[in-house]
C-alpha cells in the first residue's frame, strides 16, 4: 500500500479546489436553508450561470475577464429574481419544486444542441481563464512543504486558484457573520421559524426572503467561478442536481446556521471521500480486496458517504458545530 500518496492526496484535499468551490457555494446555501429556511434545491444553477456567464463573455463575446465576472454575477442576481418572484409568496415547498426544476432547465439549456454556438453543448467551454492566470503572482513552480515523509505541494496555478478561493471564503464568512449577528439576520431566522409571526410584527417577509435568495445565490455563484477557473472549463453536467445535494450534505455535516459550518462540512466531505477512495483503490490494486475492481471503488465510496450521512443524522443531527438544544426543540 502506498500510504504516502494516500495521505498526501487526502491532506491536500482538505484545502484543495473542490473543497474551496463547494465550501463557498455551501455558504450561500446555508444563507438560504440554514438561516432563512428557504428550501433551495437549485444552488448548482447559481454556480452554473456564473461559470457560463464568465465563459461565454470571454470565449463567445471576446470580452475581458473582469467583464465575464460582472456578467456572471448579474446572471446570478437575475436567476434569484426569476426564482423568487413567483415562488416566495407561496408555501415553502413550492420553492423546492421550482428551484429543482429551474436548475434542470438551466443545465439542459446549457447542453442543448440548439444553443451549441453560445453554450458549447455538452462539451461546454474552455479557454477563458487567461485573464485570471495573467494576474497570478506566483512564479511557475511548486509550492508547499514536506510533512515528514509526506509531500504536500500545489503547482503555481492551483495555488493561485485556492488562494483567491480561500480569500473569498474568508470574506463570505465575515459578511455572513456580521449579517447574522445583526437585526437583519434576526429577521431571516425569525422567517425560518414562522413567517406569519414576522408579518404580524411589521416586517416585509417577501422582501427579506428575496434579499436572502440574492445574497446566497451570489455567494453560490462565486463557487461557479472557482470551478471554471480551477478546471479551466465549464461543462453543463457539472452543475447538476447532485452537486446541490452534496452541498446540503456539507451544510448539515458542519451544522446548519453556523457561520463556519459549510466550510468545515466541505473539508470533511472531501477528506473522507478522497481518503476512502485512496485506501480502497490501493487495497484493490495490491490485492487485499478481490471482490471488486478499481472502477467499482468509485461507486462504493458514494455508498459509504451515504451511510455516513445517515449515521450522522442519527447520532449528531446538529452537525459538528450545531447546538444540541436547538435540535431538541420542536420547530412547530
Amino acid at each position, binding site marked *: 500500500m502506498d500510504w504516502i500518496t494516500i495521505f498526501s492526496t487526502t491532506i491536500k484535499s482538505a484545502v484543495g479546489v473542490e473543497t474551496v468551490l463547494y465550501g463557498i457555494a455551501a455558504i450561500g446555501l446555508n444563507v438560504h436553508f440554514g438561516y432563512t429556511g428557504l428550501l433551495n434545491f437549485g444552488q448548482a444553477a447559481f454556480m452554473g450561470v456564473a461559470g457560463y456567464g464568465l465563459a461565454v463573455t470571454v470565449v463567445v463575446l471576446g470580452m475581458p475577464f473582469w467583464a465575464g465576472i460582472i456578467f456572471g454575477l448579474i446572471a446570478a442576481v437575475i436567476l434569484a429574481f426569476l426564482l423568487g418572484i413567483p415562488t416566495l409568496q407561496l408555501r415553502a415547498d413550492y420553492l423546492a419544486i421550482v428551484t429543482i426544476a429551474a436548475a434542470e432547465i438551466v443545465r439542459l439549456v446549457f447542453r442543448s444542441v440548439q444553443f451549441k454556438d453560445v453554450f458549447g453543448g455538452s462539451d461546454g467551454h474552455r479557454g477563458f481563464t487567461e485573464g485570471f492566470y495573467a494576474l497570478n503572482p506566483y512564479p511557475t513552480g511548486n509550492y508547499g512543504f514536506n510533512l515528514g515523509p509526506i509531500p504536500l505541494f500545489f503547482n503555481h496555478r492551483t495555488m493561485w486558484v485556492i488562494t483567491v478561493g480561500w480569500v473569498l471564503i474568508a470574506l463570505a464568512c465575515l*459578511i455572513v457573520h*456580521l*449579517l447574522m*449577528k*445583526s*437585526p*437583519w*439576520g*434576526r*429577521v431571516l*431566522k*425569525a422567517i*425560518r*421559524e*414562522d413567517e*406569519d*409571526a*414576522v*408579518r*404580524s*410584527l*411589521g*416586517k*416585509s*417577509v417577501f422582501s427579506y426572503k428575496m*434579499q436572502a435568495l440574492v*445574497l446566497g445565490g451570489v455567494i453560490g455563484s462565486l463557487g461557479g467561478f472557482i470551478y471554471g477557473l480551477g478546471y479551466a472549463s465549464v461543462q453543463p453536467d457539472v452543475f447538476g442536481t447532485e452537486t446541490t445535494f452534496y452541498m446540503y450534505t456539507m451544510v448539515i455535516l458542519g451544522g446548519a446556521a453556523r457561520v463556519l459550518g459549510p466550510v468545515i462540512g466541505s473539508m470533511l466531505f472531501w477528506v473522507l471521500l478522497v481518503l476512502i477512495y485512496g485506501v480502497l483503490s490501493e487495497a484493490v490494486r495490491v490485492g487485499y480486496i478481490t471482490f471488486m475492481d478499481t472502477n467499482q471503488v468509485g461507486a462504493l465510496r458514494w455508498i459509504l458517504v451515504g451511510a455516513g450521512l445517515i449515521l450522522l443524522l442519527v447520532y449528531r443531527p446538529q452537525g459538528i458545530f450545531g447546538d444540541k*438544544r*436547538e435540535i431538541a*426543540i*420542536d*420547530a*412547530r
Partner: protein
Amino acid sequence: MHAETMSTDRKAAALAAFKDLARDPGVPKPDPILVVDHVVRRFGGLTAVDVGHVEIQRGSITALIGPNGAGKTTFFNQLTGFDTADAGSWTFNGRSMNGVPAHKVARSGMVRTFQLTKALSRLTVLENMRLGAQKQKGENFWRALVPRVWRAQEDEITERAEELLARFKLDAKRDDFAGSLSGGQRKLLEMARALMVNPELVMLDEPMAGVNPALTQSLLGHVKDLREQGMTVLFVEHDMDMVRDISDWVIVMAQGAVIAEGPPSTIMSDQRVIDAYLGAHHDAPLSEGELEAQLQEAEAALEAEIEEETQK
C-alpha cells in the same frame, strides 16, 4: 397613588363612552378607532364572515365573543391583512385598510396575536422581543454590515424589551429558546412581543386559552394595563368570567355576523345571545305534564330492556 387615580379615570372614561349606547349590532361609538363595513369572507359555500357594520371605541377594552366557528378568528384575519376578504372595507384611525398587506397593517399600529401561539422557537426570548421593535436601522441589509450604525438603537430596544419581560415575569427566561417555554409562557411572550411594536390597537385572539389560572390573573392585569397606557384592546375570549372582569363592551358574533353588542354585565342575558349559544328553542320550559310523560317513557324503555336481558 397617581397610577390608581389614572386607572379609574381611564376605566371611567371608557365606561362613560358606552353608557347610553343602544344594544344593537353596529351601534355607532363616540370615538371609534376601527370602523368596519360589510366585510365578507367565504370558503367555498360557507360564509365564514359577513359583518355589516361594527365600530371599536378608542381607549376601551372590547371583547369579541361567540360560539366555536362563529368566524372570530377569520374576522381578525381579514382586518389584519392575513387573509383577503371577498368584499368590504374598514378604516383604522380614518385610514382605509382593505387590501393592505399584513406587515403594513402592523406598522400602522394595529397588531394582532394568534389563537395558536407563534413563538419563534429557535430564537431566544430576548430575540423574540427585539424583533418586535419598529424602524430598526440594523434591519437594512447594508447598515446591518456596520454594527456601529445600529448598536445604540439595539441597546435601547434591549432595554425596552427587558422592561416588558420583567412586567410579564419572563425576565428569568430571557436567554432561553422560546421553544422551551410552556404554553402559558408563550402566550405571555407573544403578547409582550406585540407590545414591542408600540401598537395603538392590540387584537388578542384568545390570549388566556390554555393558560393556568394563576397566570390568567396576571394576564388579565396586563390587558387592563394596556388600556391604562392609552391603547385600545380588542380580544377574543370564551370564558365569560374573564370577559366580565376586564371588558368595557362586548360584541357577539354568530355564524359570521355580529348579532348583538352590549355591556359585559348584561350581554349574556340578551335573548339573541342565548339563542346563538344554545340554539333557538333550548329554553322553552317543560310543563309538568311533559315532564311526567318523559319520565314514564324512560321507565318503560328501562323495563323493556331488563325483560330482554332476563329472557336471554
